[in-house]
């Protein structure tokens, strides 16, 4: 099923992963933003699960569009419009190849993961949802993969079911079959948890859901930067992600939807671009993906996103993942040695995200004191309040790593946490 071998670049990337370790200094040189001091210390940016920084290749792609090709897409006959349209559609092709979708029409450009989920909620699920139906989520979803479904439930009388999370922060898979019932209309699950780092076995979940005839949406917002994604191998119906979390621009993301689904779905928003013909009596709609791209799209965003995905493929997702795995192991060991630190989320399969609490130190204070040391982490509930409740904490501090982070930064984080204890007089 995996057609990766047939794609230019993919095989080379995969073998490269095994041989050459990542040269982090070379990588860092491509990120202008990393060359700065914060509070008199070199910036250690460890908030990558919130958003990633952008490499020169992405900055150049976006400014190049403005400097050479800026025109509206799908509209003009003139040279610039033709170039812009070609670049925009080429970007769609890049996303398709990177996800290994079977055709470019399966890729819809959207604002981000949130908009993609809402699109599926209203266009795909709403028409088929009835009173008493069920939508199955998991206990580790981001609010973006909870609230849209809740809104549907309010309108339709359907209800949410939730696959629970273990103390280690893994999904309780043994409960899955019991929760998949005759009334289940969709399973929506995150590929990688933004708050715990857990990598979920989405292929297995999809297979079990499909055995019961239930379609599956996967929230890939946190997965794209860390793992190779192949939507056909995963066998999912919908896959969504945001550009800004995978080294691309914000305000752009993509929805992958199986062609048969997109083909059958009504439009979500109306406007230009998504029509075939309009009279005041009747409008006929364009075929997917344009049917779902009403209005002038985020052209420079799409082009920047494609540049980011190409850049990451060029570095090698396998190499990036190996480096991040080493950072994660190092950070896990280092944090465990800091008195009072409790790591939340200890799944066997984890991306480089560490959520933790510290005895006697509120996450907010941890965040401020680390910032003083030039270390950027996220503190709060990470838009996953049900999960925070599950672990009995109001909030956590979270360090999340990207391929440009270093082992020296891991050491600084651990030292910074000791400093937190000193400042707070613990």
């Amino acid at each position, binding site marked *: 099923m995996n057609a990766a071998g047939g794609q230019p670049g993919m095989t080379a990337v995969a073998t490269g992963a095994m041989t050459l370790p990542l040269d982090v200094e070379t990588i860092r040189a491509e990120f202008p933003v990393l060359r700065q001091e914060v509070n008199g210390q070199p910036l250690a940016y460890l908030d990558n699960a919130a958003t990633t920084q952008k490499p020169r290749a992405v900055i150049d792609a976006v400014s190049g569009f403005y400097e050479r090709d800026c025109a509206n897409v799908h509209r003009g006959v003139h040279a610039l419009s033709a170039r812009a349209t070609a670049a925009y559609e080429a970007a769609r092709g890049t996303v398709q190849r990177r996800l290994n979708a079977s055709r470019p029409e399966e890729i819809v450009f959207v604002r981000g993961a949130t908009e993609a989920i809402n699109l599926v909620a209203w266009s795909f699920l709403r028409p088929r949802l009835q009173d008493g139906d069920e939508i199955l989520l998991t206990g580790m979803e981001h609010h973006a993969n909870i609230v849209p479904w809740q809104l549907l439930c309010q309108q339709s009388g359907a209800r949410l079911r939730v696959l629970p999370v273990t103390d280690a922060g893994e999904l309780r898979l043994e409960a899955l079959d019991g929760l998949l019932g005759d009334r289940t209309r969709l399973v929506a699950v995150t590929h990688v948890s933004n708050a715990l780092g857990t990598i979920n076995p989405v292929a297995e979940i999809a297979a079990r859901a499909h055995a019961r005839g239930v379609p599956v949406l996967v929230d890939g917002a946190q997965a794209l930067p860390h793992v190779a994604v192949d939507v056909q191998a995963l066998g999912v119906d919908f896959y969504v992600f945001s550009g800004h979390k995978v080294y691309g621009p914000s305000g752009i993301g993509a929805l992958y939807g199986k062609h048969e689904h997109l083909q059958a779905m009504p439009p979500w928003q109306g406007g230009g671009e998504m029509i075939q013909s309009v009279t005041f009596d009747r409008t006929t709609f364009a075929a997917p993906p344009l049917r779902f791209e009403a209005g002038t799209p985020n052209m420079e965003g799409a082009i920047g996103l494609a540049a980011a995905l190409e850049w990451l493929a060029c570095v090698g997702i396998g190499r990036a993942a190996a480096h991040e795995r080493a950072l994660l192991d190092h950070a896990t060991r280092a944090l465990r040695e800091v008195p009072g630190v409790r790591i939340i989320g200890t799944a066997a399969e984890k991306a480089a995200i560490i959520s933790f609490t510290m005895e006697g*130190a509120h*996450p*907010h*204070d941890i965040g*401020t004191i680390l910032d003083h040391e030039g270390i950027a982490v996220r503190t709060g509930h990470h838009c996953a309040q049900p999960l925070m409740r599950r672990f009995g904490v109001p909030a956590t501090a979270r360090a999340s790593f990207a391929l440009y982070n270093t082992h020296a930064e891991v050491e600084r984080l651990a030292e910074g946490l000791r400093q937190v204890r000193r400042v707070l*007089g613990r």
Partner: protein
Amino acid sequence: MSDLRALYEEVILEHNRKPRNYMKRPEGANRSAYGFNPICGDEFTIHMAVEDGVVKDVGFEGAGCAISTASASMMTQALMGRTEAEAEALFEAMRDLLTHDHPDPAAAGRVGKLQVLTGVREFPMRVKCATLAWHTMHAALHGVDGTVNTEEPEERHQCAIGGGH
């Protein structure tokens, strides 16, 4: 480290370690309000026993960061025995000092040792931590039902004034 000390003054740390009037619902409490900051999860309930226009006793429950906890703790001490009008004036002075770029110079004199909390002004992201207890107390004082939410418009406005840009 130096300006961090302005935020984490020894007095603040001490109140954080040993909050006063904490987990206490005073005898005869007749004014209560719940306040929370949805961004960071801090939440406090303030209880007051007000008799003949005088704050006889105050206590608070809940959990938050060092700044919000110390602010609540110091506030309860400062309110004991004050008239409602004095409590109102203290609230106004604290709000002025915590959120305005150019606070009324007289305000500092009115708050006494609570001034130590104003170190938070150098940390715009933390201003709401210091104001949470005060807004909650204010709501309780006025018998406002329901909850105080730091993300409601008035506060957002203050955040911008406090240097949020």
